[in-house]
Protein backbone atom coordinates (compact mmCIF):
# COMPACT_ATOMS: atom_id res chain seq x y z
CA UNK A 1 0.00 0.00 0.00
CA UNK A 2 1.10 3.54 -0.59
CA UNK A 3 0.28 6.69 1.36
CA UNK A 4 1.42 10.27 1.62
CA UNK A 5 1.06 12.87 4.33
CA UNK A 6 1.29 16.64 4.21
CA UNK A 7 1.38 17.56 7.89
CA UNK A 8 0.68 21.26 7.45
CA UNK A 9 -2.64 22.58 6.20
CA UNK A 10 -1.13 26.02 5.72
CA UNK A 11 2.33 27.52 5.50
CA UNK A 12 2.90 31.25 5.86
CA UNK A 13 6.11 32.90 4.70
CA UNK A 14 7.25 36.44 3.96
CA UNK A 15 8.21 37.35 0.42
CA UNK A 16 11.92 36.89 -0.14
CA UNK A 17 12.28 34.30 2.61
CA UNK A 18 12.94 30.61 1.92
CA UNK A 19 9.95 28.30 1.96
CA UNK A 20 9.48 24.62 2.74
CA UNK A 21 6.34 22.55 2.23
CA UNK A 22 6.58 19.16 3.90
CA UNK A 23 5.68 15.74 2.55
CA UNK A 24 6.26 12.27 3.95
CA UNK A 25 5.37 9.02 2.27
CA UNK A 26 4.98 5.31 2.85
CA UNK A 27 5.46 2.60 0.22
CA UNK A 28 6.32 -1.07 0.30
CA UNK A 29 8.99 -0.71 -2.36
CA UNK A 30 10.68 2.32 -3.87
CA UNK A 31 8.76 5.53 -4.53
CA UNK A 32 8.10 7.74 -7.45
CA UNK A 33 7.34 11.15 -5.94
CA UNK A 34 5.67 14.20 -7.47
CA UNK A 35 4.80 17.76 -6.55
CA UNK A 36 1.94 19.70 -8.12
CA UNK A 37 0.67 23.24 -7.68
CA UNK A 38 -2.92 24.40 -7.98
CA UNK A 39 -3.98 28.02 -8.41
CA UNK A 40 -7.58 29.04 -7.63
CA UNK A 41 -10.15 27.60 -10.02
CA UNK A 42 -7.48 25.81 -12.04
CA UNK A 43 -6.29 22.26 -12.43
CA UNK A 44 -3.12 20.87 -10.90
CA UNK A 45 0.15 21.69 -12.63
CA UNK A 46 3.14 19.39 -12.44
CA UNK A 47 6.18 20.95 -10.73
CA UNK A 48 8.78 18.23 -10.37
CA UNK A 49 9.34 14.54 -9.75
CA UNK A 50 11.81 12.17 -8.15
CA UNK A 51 12.42 8.88 -9.93
CA UNK A 52 15.95 7.87 -9.05
CA UNK A 53 19.42 9.35 -8.81
CA UNK A 54 20.27 12.74 -7.32
CA UNK A 55 18.31 13.38 -4.14
CA UNK A 56 17.88 17.07 -4.98
CA UNK A 57 15.42 17.55 -7.80
CA UNK A 58 14.93 20.88 -9.55
CA UNK A 59 11.63 21.82 -11.14
CA UNK A 60 9.56 24.64 -12.54
CA UNK A 61 9.39 28.23 -11.23
CA UNK A 62 12.55 27.87 -9.13
CA UNK A 63 11.19 25.09 -6.94
CA UNK A 64 13.24 22.13 -5.82
CA UNK A 65 12.64 19.13 -3.61
CA UNK A 66 14.89 16.93 -1.54
CA UNK A 67 14.35 13.19 -1.39
CA UNK A 68 15.36 11.65 1.94
CA UNK A 69 14.96 7.89 1.96
CA UNK A 70 15.81 7.38 5.64
CA UNK A 71 13.20 9.92 6.71
CA UNK A 72 10.78 8.94 3.91
CA UNK A 73 10.35 12.59 3.06
CA UNK A 74 10.19 14.71 -0.08
CA UNK A 75 9.97 18.32 1.04
CA UNK A 76 9.39 21.09 -1.49
CA UNK A 77 11.64 24.12 -1.20
CA UNK A 78 12.34 27.47 -2.76
CA UNK A 79 15.17 29.79 -1.73
CA UNK A 80 13.19 33.03 -2.09
CA UNK A 81 9.39 33.07 -2.03
CA UNK A 82 7.26 35.26 -4.26
CA UNK A 83 3.73 36.48 -3.58
CA UNK A 84 2.76 34.75 -6.83
CA UNK A 85 3.82 31.41 -5.29
CA UNK A 86 0.72 31.56 -3.09
CA UNK A 87 -1.30 28.49 -4.06
CA UNK A 88 -2.25 24.98 -3.00
CA UNK A 89 0.53 22.39 -3.20
CA UNK A 90 0.05 18.66 -3.51
CA UNK A 91 2.53 15.86 -2.98
CA UNK A 92 1.85 12.48 -4.65
CA UNK A 93 3.48 9.06 -4.51
CA UNK A 94 3.48 5.89 -6.59
CA UNK A 95 4.97 2.64 -5.34
CA UNK A 96 7.39 1.38 -7.96
CA UNK A 97 6.94 -2.17 -6.79
CA UNK A 98 3.15 -2.27 -6.84
CA UNK A 99 1.26 -4.20 -9.50
CA UNK A 100 -2.16 -3.72 -11.04
CA UNK A 101 -3.23 -0.12 -10.80
CA UNK A 102 0.21 1.02 -9.76
CA UNK A 103 0.12 3.89 -12.22
CA UNK A 104 -2.49 5.54 -10.00
CA UNK A 105 -0.82 7.87 -7.54
CA UNK A 106 -1.90 8.69 -4.03
CA UNK A 107 -2.19 12.40 -3.32
CA UNK A 108 -1.73 14.23 -0.06
CA UNK A 109 -4.46 16.52 1.23
CA UNK A 110 -2.65 19.61 0.05
CA UNK A 111 -0.88 22.49 1.77
CA UNK A 112 -1.96 26.07 1.28
CA UNK A 113 1.07 28.31 0.84
CA UNK A 114 0.55 31.97 1.63
CA UNK A 115 3.35 34.37 0.82
CA UNK A 116 2.97 37.76 2.48
CA UNK A 117 4.31 40.91 0.77
Amino acid at each position, binding site marked *: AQSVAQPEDQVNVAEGNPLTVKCTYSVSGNP*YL*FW*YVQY*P*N*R*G*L*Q*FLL*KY*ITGDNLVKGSYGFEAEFNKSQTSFHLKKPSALVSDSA*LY*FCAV*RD*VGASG*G*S*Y*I*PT*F*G*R*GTSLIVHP
Partner: protein
Amino acid sequence: SQTIHQWPATLVQPVGSPLSLECTVEGTSNPNLYWYRQAAGRGLQLLFYSVGIGQISSEVPQNLSASRPQDRQFILSSKKLLLSDSGFYLCAWSVRGGASNQPQHFGDGTRLSIL
Protein backbone atom coordinates in the same frame (compact mmCIF):
# COMPACT_ATOMS: atom_id res chain seq x y z
CA SER B 1 2.27 19.31 -27.53
CA GLN B 2 -0.41 17.63 -25.49
CA THR B 3 -3.47 19.50 -24.25
CA ILE B 4 -6.48 18.55 -22.22
CA HIS B 5 -9.83 20.27 -22.42
CA GLN B 6 -12.73 20.17 -20.00
CA TRP B 7 -16.12 21.76 -20.38
CA PRO B 8 -18.11 23.45 -19.19
CA ALA B 9 -15.99 25.49 -16.78
CA THR B 10 -18.91 26.10 -14.45
CA LEU B 11 -22.30 24.49 -14.17
CA VAL B 12 -25.31 25.08 -11.95
CA GLN B 13 -27.83 22.26 -11.89
CA PRO B 14 -30.97 21.49 -9.86
CA VAL B 15 -31.16 18.41 -7.66
CA GLY B 16 -32.41 15.43 -9.64
CA SER B 17 -31.26 16.70 -13.02
CA PRO B 18 -28.88 14.75 -15.29
CA LEU B 19 -25.20 15.55 -15.78
CA SER B 20 -22.67 15.21 -18.55
CA LEU B 21 -19.13 16.54 -18.25
CA GLU B 22 -16.73 16.04 -21.11
CA CYS B 23 -12.97 15.81 -21.27
CA THR B 24 -10.82 15.44 -24.36
CA VAL B 25 -7.08 15.05 -24.79
CA GLU B 26 -5.08 16.12 -27.83
CA GLY B 27 -1.55 15.36 -28.94
CA THR B 28 -1.19 11.90 -27.46
CA SER B 29 -2.56 8.42 -28.05
CA ASN B 30 -3.74 5.67 -25.72
CA PRO B 31 -3.62 7.75 -22.56
CA ASN B 32 -4.75 6.65 -19.14
CA LEU B 33 -7.65 8.89 -18.18
CA TYR B 34 -8.94 9.88 -14.76
CA TRP B 35 -11.85 11.73 -13.15
CA TYR B 36 -11.29 13.31 -9.74
CA ARG B 37 -13.52 15.34 -7.45
CA GLN B 38 -12.13 18.01 -5.20
CA ALA B 39 -14.27 19.23 -2.34
CA ALA B 40 -13.75 22.58 -0.64
CA GLY B 41 -10.52 23.25 -2.53
CA ARG B 42 -8.57 20.50 -0.82
CA GLY B 43 -7.93 16.81 -1.28
CA LEU B 44 -8.55 14.88 -4.47
CA GLN B 45 -10.93 11.95 -4.59
CA LEU B 46 -10.37 9.55 -7.49
CA LEU B 47 -13.73 8.68 -9.02
CA PHE B 48 -12.93 6.71 -12.18
CA TYR B 49 -9.97 5.74 -14.30
CA SER B 50 -9.65 4.18 -17.72
CA VAL B 51 -6.84 2.38 -19.55
CA GLY B 52 -8.66 2.11 -22.86
CA ILE B 53 -11.86 2.54 -24.84
CA GLY B 54 -14.78 1.08 -22.95
CA GLN B 55 -12.59 0.12 -19.96
CA ILE B 56 -13.71 1.95 -16.83
CA SER B 57 -12.76 1.28 -13.23
CA SER B 58 -14.76 2.85 -10.42
CA GLU B 59 -13.11 3.78 -7.18
CA VAL B 60 -16.07 5.08 -5.21
CA PRO B 61 -19.65 3.77 -5.34
CA GLN B 62 -21.99 6.66 -6.08
CA ASN B 63 -24.60 7.87 -8.51
CA LEU B 64 -21.98 8.90 -11.04
CA SER B 65 -20.78 6.93 -14.03
CA ALA B 66 -18.05 7.35 -16.62
CA SER B 67 -17.64 6.34 -20.22
CA ARG B 68 -14.83 6.39 -22.75
CA PRO B 69 -16.40 6.22 -26.19
CA GLN B 70 -13.21 7.23 -27.99
CA ASP B 71 -9.53 6.91 -27.17
CA ARG B 72 -9.10 10.51 -26.05
CA GLN B 73 -12.59 11.27 -24.77
CA PHE B 74 -13.75 10.73 -21.20
CA ILE B 75 -17.27 11.56 -20.04
CA LEU B 76 -18.64 11.82 -16.51
CA SER B 77 -22.39 11.38 -16.17
CA SER B 78 -25.23 11.14 -13.73
CA LYS B 79 -28.90 10.37 -14.24
CA LYS B 80 -29.99 12.24 -11.11
CA LEU B 81 -27.77 14.69 -9.29
CA LEU B 82 -27.63 14.89 -5.50
CA LEU B 83 -26.69 17.90 -3.39
CA SER B 84 -23.57 16.00 -2.35
CA ASP B 85 -22.39 15.92 -5.98
CA SER B 86 -21.38 19.56 -5.75
CA GLY B 87 -17.65 20.09 -6.17
CA PHE B 88 -14.78 20.75 -8.51
CA TYR B 89 -14.36 17.98 -11.07
CA LEU B 90 -10.97 17.43 -12.62
CA CYS B 91 -10.04 15.29 -15.58
CA ALA B 92 -6.45 14.11 -16.00
CA TRP B 93 -4.37 11.97 -18.34
CA SER B 94 -1.08 10.16 -18.08
CA VAL B 95 1.09 8.04 -20.33
CA ARG B 96 -0.37 4.56 -20.79
CA GLY B 97 0.81 1.49 -19.07
CA GLY B 98 3.93 0.84 -17.09
CA ALA B 99 5.37 4.34 -17.31
CA SER B 100 4.28 5.07 -13.77
CA ASN B 101 7.18 7.48 -13.36
CA GLN B 102 5.35 9.96 -15.56
CA PRO B 103 3.17 12.68 -14.03
CA GLN B 104 -0.51 13.25 -14.56
CA HIS B 105 -1.70 16.24 -16.56
CA PHE B 106 -4.87 17.96 -15.42
CA GLY B 107 -7.57 19.97 -17.11
CA ASP B 108 -8.81 23.21 -15.61
CA GLY B 109 -11.84 21.59 -14.09
CA THR B 110 -15.59 22.05 -13.93
CA ARG B 111 -17.11 23.70 -10.89
CA LEU B 112 -20.47 22.05 -10.32
CA SER B 113 -23.05 23.59 -8.01
CA ILE B 114 -26.24 21.73 -7.18
CA LEU B 115 -29.23 23.78 -6.05
